[in-house]
């Protein structure tokens, strides 16, 4: 496969995953913001959304009020924000267009449709309902994409590069999201029942579509350290850090098998997975959750760079 095509597929995967994350973040934040400020709603909810999306610098530079109307718009339709859903889909589509022939008709149509969907909303958001509708619509369009890719793409390099982009982006998103809220996740001495932080935790779980999953896994009320455990160490949870690393290792193995040799990216991914698997939530809390997350994001970037280098992007 052309290295440029591999790069296009990888980045298409990344951009689509990012758009999906933003949809879920907005969805969860709208719910949180509907609570009184004393419950962490209103303004702080949107500030936290901006930080979770790791676009705080870009937003502050625009000098806009930190409220739903502005943050919501910035994250969804703002044509100037390189990380808005609109721009992510635009980039995903142009990457897809550049490798049009590697995609099945269904997969291409799905990414093309997602882009047309967001285009239909224009560049302004008249009301809250529309903001929610954008998130819903795009989320659906992206589910369609995943389904099309899963059902129709050949299981070969094309698909693996696409999924690799998804996985690397997903690990990054989960780690950043956790880091923004890490102070809320630390175990405390005071009783947790009825804490106002409850809404913060459930918001976090919702953002990664894990609220129901949490209940199935732990069968108890939402406790912050278990939220962290679920999103870092639970292999069954598709957005957890360890699941992302497992996926990355597997995908890189497939690529290595088709190419006949392994490279630095394979080693970085396996090492990260081994290290993480050898740890647990208590150890992490002792050595510092924040430090761990910062390291993880750094390692994940290193993995991204190694992939680019290994496959000559």
């Amino acid at each position, binding site marked *: *496969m*052309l*290295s*440029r*095509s*591999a790069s296009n597929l990888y980045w298409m995967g990344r951009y689509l995953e990012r758009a999906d994350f933003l949809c879920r973040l907005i969805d969860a934040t709208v719910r949180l913001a509907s609570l009184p400020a004393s419950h962490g709603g209103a303004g702080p909810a949107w500030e936290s959304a901006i930080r979770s999306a790791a676009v705080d610098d870009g937003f502050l530079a625009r000098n806009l009020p930190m409220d739903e109307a502005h943050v919501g718009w910035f994250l969804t339709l703002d044509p100037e924000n390189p990380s808005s859903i609109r721009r992510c889909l635009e980039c995903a589509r*142009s990457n897809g*267009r*550049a490798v*049009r*022939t590697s995609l099945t*008709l269904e997969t*291409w*149509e799905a990414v*093309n*449709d997602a882009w047309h969907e967001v285009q239909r909303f224009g560049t302004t958001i008249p009301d809250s309902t529309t903001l929610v509708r954008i998130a819903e619509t795009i989320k659906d369009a992206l589910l369609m994409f995943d389904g099309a890719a899963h059902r129709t793409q050949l299981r070969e*390099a094309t698909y693996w590069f696409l999924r690799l982009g998804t996985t690397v982006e997903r690990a990054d998103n989960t780690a950043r999201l956790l880091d923004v809220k890490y102070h809320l996740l630390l175990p405390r001495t005071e009783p947790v029942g009825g804490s106002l932080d409850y809404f913060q935790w459930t918001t976090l779980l919702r953002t990664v579509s894990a609220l129901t999953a949490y209940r199935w896994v732990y069968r108890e009320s939402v406790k912050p350290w278990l939220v962290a455990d679920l999103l870092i160490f639970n292999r069954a949870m598709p957005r957890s850090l360890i699941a992302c690393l497992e996926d990355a290792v597997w995908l890189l193995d497939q*690529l290595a098998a088709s*190419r006949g040799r392994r490279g630095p990216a394979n080693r970085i991914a396996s090492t990260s997975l081994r290290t993480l698997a050898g740890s647990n939530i208590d150890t992490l809390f002792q050595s510092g959750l924040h430090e761990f997350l910062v390291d993880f994001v750094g390692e994940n970037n290193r993995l991204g760079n190694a992939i680019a280098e290994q*496959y*000559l992007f």
Partner: protein
Amino acid sequence: MGVTARAFDETYGFGPYPDASGAGPLFGGDGAGPEVRAAYAQVAAWLRSAPPELLETRRRQAELFFRRIGITFAVYGDPDASERLIPFDIVPRVLAGSEWAVLEEGLTQRVQALNLFLADVYGPRECIRAGVVPEELVLLNPQYCMAAVGRRPAKDVWVHIAGIDLVRTGPDEFFVLEDNARTPSGVSYMLENREVMLRLVPELIHAVSERGGLRPVETYPETLLETLTSVAPNHCGAEPCLALLTPGIHNSAYYEHSFLADKLGVELVEGSDLFVSGDVLFMRTTEGPKRVDVLYRRVDDDFIDPLTFRQDSVLGVPGLVGAVHAGNLTIANALGTGIADDKAIYSYMPEIVRFFTGRDPILHNVPTWRCREADALSYVLDNLHELVVKETDGSGGYGMLVGPHATSEQREQFAARLKANPQHYIAQPTLALSTCPTLTAAGIAPRHVDLRPFVLTGANGTKIIPGGLTRVALKEGSLVVNSSQGGGTKDTWVLDGPEVGDMTGASTGPFEAEGGDIDGPFPGPGGLD
């Protein structure tokens, strides 16, 4: 010269109806009105039986199909419409097998002449010595490519892929409007338009196949692959590595590039995917460098190698020309073919065809005034209102003046440009392009069309897929069919079988019996509002 003021209608021939003031619907329900030519019999019957809503529904379905598959093109200089859909008309344009046979022979002759001409002007230059073409027009022509001088491409094929633009003015009169010998585009529409017709009007195709059938176009990719493989450098084994070079996703024909690469099963590459080492071309793949033997390039000479041509080009590959000259790489089309589709050279094509093939040209040339000649220039300036003036190296309908449709102000501005740089222009009479029935907002109405068949030449001769790109000027009365100027496309049907039959059944002859008082076939402007 065979050019008439009145347009030939491909459905009816020269009927008595262009003045359709009291018009009724085309293909009127009772079958009254002028006789339909044999080739259009099934189409006419289908249009008669199909309710207008159905046609409109089908048209919308076609549009949806094209948008979904992303068959769009970019319009230069129009940021709002960077990805527009070329309007598609669901009424096919039909050519009888016998009509096609003539075209096929004429096109083969013409393209063979183009190839021989190129071999000659970059080689012995006999046609110049014989006075067929003026020396300075060749040697001082901006399209004359110094890098090709004294070179011979593999198997002596220069123009592997040609798109010859034809217009029709009468039952047996086809004129060549332009030869496209560089990187002609549009073949994806030939293929996709057929696909959409097969899906949307199966009943019509079925009716046609009962009467002899519709010749398929789907063999084009296969034939192109054979053509490209046949001209691979000698070092290659049975399976040379082919790639298609595109300028990238911002090019107006990018969809076509990706479409063709897909159908050919070859990599679609950009300049940055390629590099030359030791006069061998490689592409960068995830498995490491891979050698490329034949490059179907859709990038013009000027941009293809910054070491040889424009230094600021990032679309090409440094050293590519060296790889070609070392015999390690074949590029299609060869370097320097621009001289063959230069519009000033065009005017000499009848002489060129005669000189190289020893026969009279089967396809006519449109009479052309070369503005570089003083007499011609003054004639053109005096008659701007009835001429079409084109840049000799222009394409795509950009930078041309359609005299009869221009305002006097536009004509004055154009005249100034013409006087400043006469050698840059040629002029031609406004031809009465033939018309075809076309679905418009006001029902079926005649619109002007042209035709671009695609001619493939490899080591084993010249092949033409029966069909081509029919472009249609959707605006009433307009003669400009270019997609960048609001034109649309139609599927082009070549029927099987040699039967000529200008009229259906036992024709009673020409139309005078009907007189001018009966319903003409075409609604007048706004007639159905």
